[in-house]
């Protein structure tokens, strides 16, 4: 479930990133790299689990599925926090700088 949430997050952010090109003001690439990196790593994890559990891997208990979904959503939230920090620190639109430094006439 965590893998699925991460893959969907990667697909959605990549589609939005592509649509917004060449404008890079929102730094959406950061989110794409985060989600794709995690998705690939969880894919490997899933393959190993499948090799161990077989078809049972695709029929998890409801409790495990809920926990994995909760984890997946938390991962999305964490990734968005990382993205927001990067966005505010790099400040491509100069919004934060504009708030901190007022121009004098």
């Amino acid at each position, binding site marked *: 479930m*965590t893998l699925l949430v*991460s893959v969907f997050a990667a697909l959605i952010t990549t589609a939005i990133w592509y649509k917004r090109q060449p404008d890079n003001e929102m730094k959406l*690439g*950061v989110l794409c*790299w*985060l*989600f*794709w*990196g*995690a*998705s*690939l*790593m*969880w*894919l*490997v*994890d899933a*393959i*190993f689990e499948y090799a161990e559990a077989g078809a049972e891997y695709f029929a998890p208990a409801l409790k495990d599925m809920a926990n994995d979904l909760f*984890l997946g959503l*938390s*991962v999305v939230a*964490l*990734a968005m926090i*990382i993205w927001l920090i990067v966005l505010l620190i790099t400040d491509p639109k100069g919004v934060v700088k504009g708030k901190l430094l007022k121009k004098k006439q």
Partner: protein
Amino acid sequence: MACFLVPMTEAIVMTVVQKVVEKKEKKAGVETVTSADGYRMEKLPFSKKIGWLNKLLWGGSALLAFEHLWHGEIVPFFPFLTAASEGPEAVSEMLGEMGTVGVSMAALITVVWLGMLLVTSLMQKKALKAIPAAE
């Protein structure tokens, strides 16, 4: 247990490599490619391409570290790895997992990155051929 440490280690090494390559590229200047009709274009620096690999590795490692924290496999205090406080058997299991799952994670990301290099290189060549026709 701590499989994400393997891609994280690769990320640390490759970040250093990226910095070294970046320095070399700055000294050498901007590399250009020329199409059959003499059209010159700036080539995407290799350091930037290494940056793609680093972003995948760091991004994935960060989110997986959170997952390990979630499952109690790592803790925010010494010895950080739960297995390290559970005895030699747990440590051996952890190392085994790092050697199989962790190495496979790092390998898959690297293979995907190599694929990206191949595809972008082909796209670049195709774009260079298309320029004279478009003008």
